């Protein structure tokens, strides 16, 4: 090799190393608060950034750095941060996960920092998703994730079906009967061209858990200080209803089994599914922005089983215990989640705001975008009995989702699925019992 080539390589490596090290001389004196946000839709990101900019403009001494995280990797990112101590000062996540973090001692108890205005204005059901029995608050809830039923207005009108109203909601039997009516084989070739219902059942634990409350179930029950899983007749009735629609009257599209809620939306646009059941309220954003011209849709009030009560989870802002500036972090959260900013965040993420004052705003009672019916479900929401169950997140991914997937694919009967869920759940939960984690 020529000497000039070697010199070139040495100089090249030297120059780049100097470049790399150059960026490392940060002044650590007045570092900004680090805020990891999981907003991902364009409008939601813009709103988050804009609120942070507004804060930075009026707080030159306490700047906030906006860091965009991602939902898929947030758990690994945060666990590593908690364990190494190099934590963000504020992070955005969801109630069912931060509960686990709180039990492991990763989070600051925010109860001492919450203003009376915020305490009174945030809905009780939202507080219930983040408050431990000892009063410790693990995060500030600001958006409520709820399930809705969306319908194609034109397809219902064609069959002269009148959609339900909050005063006269449909029961699951009504849904099943309507879905049968809307399931069509137009050309008589034996292949169904239009299904009454599409459901995103790929990871169905969330839908099933939240819906089971309306059937009088909840899967989780407290036994002494610990949680156990029981699949009673109430939960079985919900599972059997879906199985009947999937495999007996075939009014639920079989594509549902392998799809997420988001994956069902193109079929909803094309008229393949007349209704989308159990989809998150965020889906309305996709409908507003991406639906074909002249596509008319609406939101139905929650379906009634024994009751109209459904489970809810919330999106939250939390402060890690290892953050050295919890008070300042909470000062920022107070600003970030003021009722005006909460309204902006909810509108741009198409979710229900967790504050009562926001719900009273005209924007959240608008018929356009289905805000009126979406927000009216607030009175029917409840925090599930699984809130605080140690190992719930693992249970969802290792037990509930796979067993339900097998059930809906027709490889298990409802009774077999129930037995497996109970057996496998209690193995997972007993491991957490051993760790001594208590809500």
């Amino acid at each position: 090799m020529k000497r000039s080539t070697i010199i070139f390589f040495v100089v090249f490596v030297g120059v780049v190393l100097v470049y790399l090290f150059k960026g490392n001389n940060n002044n650590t004196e007045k570092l900004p608060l680090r805020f990891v946000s999981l907003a991902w839709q364009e409008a939601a990101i813009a709103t988050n950034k804009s609120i942070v900019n507004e804060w930075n403009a009026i707080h030159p001494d306490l700047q906030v750095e906006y860091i965009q995280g991602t939902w898929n990797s947030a758990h690994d990112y945060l666990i590593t941060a908690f364990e190494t101590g190099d934590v963000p000062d504020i992070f955005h996540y969801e109630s069912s996960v931060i509960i686990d973090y709180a039990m492991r001692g990763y989070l600051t108890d925010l109860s001492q920092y919450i203003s009376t205005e915020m305490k009174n204005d945030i809905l009780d059901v939202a507080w219930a998703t983040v408050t431990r029995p000892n009063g410790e608050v693990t995060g500030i809830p600001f958006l409520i994730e709820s399930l809705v039923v969306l319908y194609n207005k034109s397809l219902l009108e064609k069959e002269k079906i009148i959609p339900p109203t909050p005063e006269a909601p449909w029961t699951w039997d009504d849904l099943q009967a309507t879905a049968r009516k809307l399931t069509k084989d137009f050309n008589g070739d034996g292949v169904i061209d239009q299904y009454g219902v599409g459901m995103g059942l790929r990871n169905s634990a969330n839908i099933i858990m939240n819906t089971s409350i309306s059937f009088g179930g909840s899967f989780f029950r407290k036994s002494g200080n610990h949680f156990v899983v029981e699949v009673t007749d109430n939960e079985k009735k919900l599972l059997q209803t879906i199985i009947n629609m999937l495999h007996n009257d075939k009014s639920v599209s079989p594509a549902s089994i392998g799809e997420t809620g988001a994956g069902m939306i193109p079929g909803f646009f094309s008229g393949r599914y007349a209704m989308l059941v159990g989809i998150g309220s965020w889906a309305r954003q996709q409908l507003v922005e991406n639906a074909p011209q002249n596509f008319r849709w609406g939101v139905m009030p929650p379906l009634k089983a024994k009751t109209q009560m459904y489970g809810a989870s919330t999106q939250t802002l939390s402060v890690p215990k290892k953050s050295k500036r919890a008070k300042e972090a909470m000062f920022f959260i107070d600003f970030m989640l003021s009722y005006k900013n909460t309204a902006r965040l909810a509108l741009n993420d198409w979710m229900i705001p967790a504050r009562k004052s926001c719900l009273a705003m005209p924007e959240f009672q608008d018929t356009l975008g289905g805000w009126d019916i979406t927000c009216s479900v607030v009175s029917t929401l409840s925090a599930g009995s699984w809130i605080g169950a140690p190992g719930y997140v693992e249970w969802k991914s290792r037990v509930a989702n796979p067993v339900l997937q097998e059930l809906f694919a027709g490889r298990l009967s409802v009774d077999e699925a129930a037995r497996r869920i109970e057996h496998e759940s209690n193995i997972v939960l007993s491991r957490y019992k051993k760790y001594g984690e208590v809500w």
Partner: protein
Amino acid sequence: MKSNSALSKLAIHALIILFIIFLLFPLLWVLASSLKSTQEIYSGSPTIFPQQISFDHYLSVINGQLIFRSMWNSVVVGVISTILVILIAVPSAYAMVRYKSIVNNGILGWILVSQIFPVILIMIPLYMVLRNIGLTDSLTGLTLIYVVWSLPFVLWMMHGYVKSIPFELEEAAVLDGATRSQVIFKVLMPLLLPAIGASALFSFISAWNEFFFALVLLKSPELGTLQVELARYTGMEGQARTGPLAAASIIATIPSMLLFIFMRKWLTTGLVSGALKG
């Protein structure tokens, strides 16, 4: 006989074409999605080719996120780590092959064992070590990680390549009066170039595609690498900003694709030469 052979040739070509379509289809789909409007992407009756070409997603990617900055970061980290890996691996492999020692087999065994540890297992101790020397949230720290991460496998590859070069060539050069460095640089290096190319490509692609280390180690948004940036287009419950994600993925593919085009000869020769016995 002739028609039989022509038929089998035709069948082979047809199979190859089908295989190429199979391989190219995801790329074509991503390219098409990047050029479709969001409404078209969500249309219930998707088409392979866009009905109307739109560059909106490319504009949104270029204006909205740190795509070029993150691409530059990935290039810097990838190139530096690759150069360092090759600079260390080539002489090490040469020494291990030519200077027989009882520890050589142990070292080779350890290289293989080191590959079985899952990243998550070593992440926290690794982070602690880097933090103690002030290299978290820096591209230097990430570069070092990538060097350590791909060095064992590259060393293993280079070991095979060096072993495939007959020792007699070096002996002949020495007999002709060549010094040790002349033997290495004038005899061995030209023969090893395809292998170095293949190993360098492997090392670069490993760094280019790596996600988890970059996610955890780099906290400042302006230091993020391409993979971390791409992940930001995905959302909860399997949702994604499909159009911008497709456009960003296409932009992200360009450098590695160019590298493959320029180095494909080295790659194929290098891979094959490593498989031969000397």
